[in-house]
């Protein structure tokens, strides 16, 4: 079972974790990752996240299916925000639940790696000096990170 949400509003990681494990005794490990908006040395006013509605949900579903085939997972939650996000605010939440920590850690790591380079989201910087900054460029390191999962 998986929960996938693409939304403008903030999320509560603790509440999402509680929701995932509520009424269950088969989950032994729950790994959560929260991605936050950095201020880039104090120069950033906000990040604007654009996404491809429809495809973003479909792509996250495909990544979740892939993770479920690779590891023994009891539950997955992915929440990704879009719109304007201020420094310090939360952008993304990934929670992976499993019987044991190994699978939960690996699945959360895998999902974040693929989400960064395969889910159709783009970030634009808005600078504090009022200029509309640049679109954030994809990093070679992110693409290289995907190679870790090729079997």
């Amino acid at each position: 079972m998986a929960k996938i949400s693409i939304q403008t509003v903030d999320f509560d990681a603790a509440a999402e974790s509680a929701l995932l494990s509520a009424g269950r005794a088969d989950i032994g490990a729950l790994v959560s990752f929260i991605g936050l908006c950095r201020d880039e040395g104090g120069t950033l006013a906000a990040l604007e996240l654009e996404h491809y509605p429809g495809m973003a949900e479909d792509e996250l579903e495909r990544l979740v299916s892939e993770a479920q085939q690779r590891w023994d997972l009891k539950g997955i939650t992915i929440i990704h925000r879009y719109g304007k996000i201020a420094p310090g605010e939360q952008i993304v939440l990934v929670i992976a639940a499993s019987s044991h920590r190994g699978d939960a850690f690996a699945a959360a790591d895998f999902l974040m790696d693929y989400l960064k380079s395969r889910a159709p989201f783009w970030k634009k910087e808005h600078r504090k000096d009022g200029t509309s900054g640049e679109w954030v460029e994809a990093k070679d390191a992110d693409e290289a990170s995907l190679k870790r999962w090729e079997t």
Partner: protein
Amino acid sequence: MSVKLVYFAWVRERIGKADELFEPPANVKTIGELIAHLAARDEAYAYAFERAPFIRAAIDRKHAKHDTPILGAHEIAFFPPMTGG
């Protein structure tokens, strides 16, 4: 048959619109050929597609490669490398 083209991030900004209907000529058979065809339309499209190999595409909301055939596509998207997370 006409196809809906959709653009995101700086591809959208450079072209100046988010989507349009387009009827690819018969000799345009792949994503790569469509990019080359669009790039030749005018300066805005040329600017959007100037780094053609760098541009990512999706057909009917699934990632596609530049050699993927476009036959039967309803919606083709063009965008820069993704920066989610």
